[in-house]
C-alpha cells in the first residue's frame, strides 16, 4: 500500500498502553493520513506502567505525573483516544469492531494491543476477600496506597516472588509496611534467573527487613474482622492486613481467539507483527512472535517489546520494509539496587558471575550456552549491561577466562581478546 492510499482510511487500536500509544504516534510519523482511533477500558490517560510497582507506588503523585504522552499530544497528532471503553468483539469479514454499548466502528487496519491481566489464583477464600490486590493498573496502585494508609498494623503478605512481587515488597517496605513474600518455588525469580541471582535478591530483601519465604504454596485465605490468615500447604500460616498478588499474567487474547486469529502462547504474529489476517496486527505483551536472534517464537512482558513491535507494525502498515529483530531488555529497581537485563537466558548451561572491585553490590551474571553468550543480568553495573548488549548483538565469542578475572576492569577489547592455547 502506498502512502497516497492511506487518506480516508481508519486505523483502530485496541489497547492504549505502551504498545498501542507508541504505535499510534509512530503510525502518524510514518505518514498515515487517515484516522487513528485508540480504545482502552482503563479510564485514565495512558501512563507508564513500570513505575507503578516502583517509584510511583511510594510517591503521592497522581497518575497525571506519569503519563506516556500529554493530553495535548494526542489532539496535536490527530489521534482519537476513547478511554473507559470496552471492546466487545471484532468481525473480520465486515471489518469492524463492536463496543460495549453495542455501537460499531469500521476499520481498514486493526491493531490488537490488549496486553495481559494478572492471574488471580484459585486459592480458597481469595475471591471474596477484601484488601487483596493485583498490581497492573493505576487503580490497583491507588487501592494499595489507601489500604496501606488505612491499616494500623500494615502487615502485608505478597504472594509470588517474581519481579512485580519483589518490587512491590520493596516499595511497601519503604512506605512503612511489614512485608512477607511467599514464593511457591524453591527460590525467587526461579523462572527467569540463575540461582546465584535469586540468592542475591533474597539477601537484599532480608537486609532491608523483608522476609522472603520459599517453597510456600498458599492454599487458603481466612478473614476475620481483625485481619486475614494466609495458610500454606506445609501447615504454616501468616497474618496479613492486605495481600498483594504477583503470580504472573494471562494474555488478553480472547477477542483475537473469538475472531479466529491464530493463537499459540499469545496471538501469533509474523516478523512485521501481522497476524494471519492481512489487515490485523498484534503488538506488545499479547503477542507470540518470532525472534530472529534466538531463532524461536517467544512471548515477552516488557516495555521494550511493546515499543519496538509498535514501531515495526507502524512502519509495515505504511508500506515500508521492516523486520522485528531485537535483543530483548528489561530493568527492575528494588531499594537502591538497579537491575538491568539483556538477552534471554533460557537454555543456558553456564553462568559466570563477576563482582567488580570486590563490591558486593556491583555484580553481573553472564549466561552462556556453550560458547554463545545468551544474556547478561547486571546489578548496579550499567557497564556490564551495555557491553553485554553489544556483545550479544554482534554474536562475539567471549574469552571466558578474561571475563572471570575480576582483577581486570570490564573492557570489551579484553572480553573478546583471542583465547590463547
Amino acid at each position, binding site marked *: 500500500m502506498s502512502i497516497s492510499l492511506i487518506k480516508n482510511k481508519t486505523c483502530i487500536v485496541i489497547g492504549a498502553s505502551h504498545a498501542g500509544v507508541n504505535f499510534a504516534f509512530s503510525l502518524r510519523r510514518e505518514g498515515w493520513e487517515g484516522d487513528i482511533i485508540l480504545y482502552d477500558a482503563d479510564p485514565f490517560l495512558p501512563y507508564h506502567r513500570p513505575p507503578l510497582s516502583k517509584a510511583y507506588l511510594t510517591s503521592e503523585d497522581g497518575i497525571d505525573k506519569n503519563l506516556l504522552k500529554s493530553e495535548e499530544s494526542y489532539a496535536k497528532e490527530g489521534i482519537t483516544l476513547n478511554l473507559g471503553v470496552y471492546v466487545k468483539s471484532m468481525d473480520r469479514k465486515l471489518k469492524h469492531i463492536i463496543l460495549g454499548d453495542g455501537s460499531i466502528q469500521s476499520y481498514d487496519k486493526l491493531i490488537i494491543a490488549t496486553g495481559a491481566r494478572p492471574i488471580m489464583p484459585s486459592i480458597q477464600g481469595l475471591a471474596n476477600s477484601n484488601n487483596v490486590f493485583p498490581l497492573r493498573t493505576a487503580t490497583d496502585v491507588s487501592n494499595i496506597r489507601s489500604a496501606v494508609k488505612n491499616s494500623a498494623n500494615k502487615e502485608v503478605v505478597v504472594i509470588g516472588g517474581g519481579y512485580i512481587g519483589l518490587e512491590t515488597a520493596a516499595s511497601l517496605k519503604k512506605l512503612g509496611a511489614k512485608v512477607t513474600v511467599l514464593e511457591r518455588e524453591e527460590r525467587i525469580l526461579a523462572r527467569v534467573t540463575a540461582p546465584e541471582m535469586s540468592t542475591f535478591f533474597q539477601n537484599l530483601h532480608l537486609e532491608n527487613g523483608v522476609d522472603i519465604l520459599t517453597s510456600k504454596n498458599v492454599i487458603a485465605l481466612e478473614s476475620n474482622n481483625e485481619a486475614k490468615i494466609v495458610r500454606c500447604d506445609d501447615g504454616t500460616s501468616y497474618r496479613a492486613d492486605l495481600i498483594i498478588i504477583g503470580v504472573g499474567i494471562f494474555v488478553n487474547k480472547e477477542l483475537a481467539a473469538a475472531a479466529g486469529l491464530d493463537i499459540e502462547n499469545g496471538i501469533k504474529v509474523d516478523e512485521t507483527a501481522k497476524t494471519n489476517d492481512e489487515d490485523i496486527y498484534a503488538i506488545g505483551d499479547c503477542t507470540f512472535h518470532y525472534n530472529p536472534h534466538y531463532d524461536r517464537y517467544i512471548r515477552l512482558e516488557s516495555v521494550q517489546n511493546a515499543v519496538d513491535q509498535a514501531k515495526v507494525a507502524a512502519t509495515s502498515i505504511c508500506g515500508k520494509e521492516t523486520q522485528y529483530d531485537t535483543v530483548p531488555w528489561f530493568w527492575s529497581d528494588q531499594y537502591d539496587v*538497579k537491575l538491568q537485563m539483556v538477552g534471554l537466558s533460557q537454555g543456558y548451561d553456564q553462568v559466570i558471575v563477576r563482582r567488580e572491585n570486590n563490591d558486593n553490590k556491583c555484580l553481573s551474571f553472564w549466561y552462556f550456552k556453550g560458547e554463545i553468550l545468551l544474556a547478561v543480568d547486571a546489578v548496579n553495573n550499567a557497564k556490564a549491561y551495555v557491553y553485554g548488549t553489544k556483545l550479544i548483538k554482534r554474536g562475539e565469542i567471549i574469552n571466558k577466562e578474561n571475563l572471570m578475572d575480576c582483577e581486570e576492569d570490564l573492557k570489551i577489547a579484553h572480553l573478546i581478546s583471542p583465547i590463547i592455547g
Partner: protein
Amino acid sequence: MAKITFITSDNETITLEGTSGSVMALAVDNGIKGIDGDCGGVCSCATCHVHVAAEDMDKTGSASEIEADMLELDDNVDEFSRLCCQLEISDSIDGIVLKVAK
C-alpha cells in the same frame, strides 16, 4: 522557568519553555523527533540522547557514571553527550541548546 532549544536530526530548531520535570519529559510532551524516553526517565533505555552545545556544558554539567555507561549503547557518544531524562529543568539551564542524537 527555562527556555530549551532542540535541534533535531532533520535540522529543525524548536524552542520550548519548561518550569519543572525533566528535559526528556518536556521533549516527549512536545513530540521532539528522536527523543523517545521509553523507560519513563530512569536512565534505563538511552533513548533520550542529546549533544549539549559546547558553551552550555557548564550549565548542564557532564554525565554521571551510570549515565555515561548507558550512553555507550550509542556509537555516536561524545564528551557533550547527555541523557536528557537526567537533566532537571530549572532556571540554571535557561537558554541551553541540545542537538538530538541521530
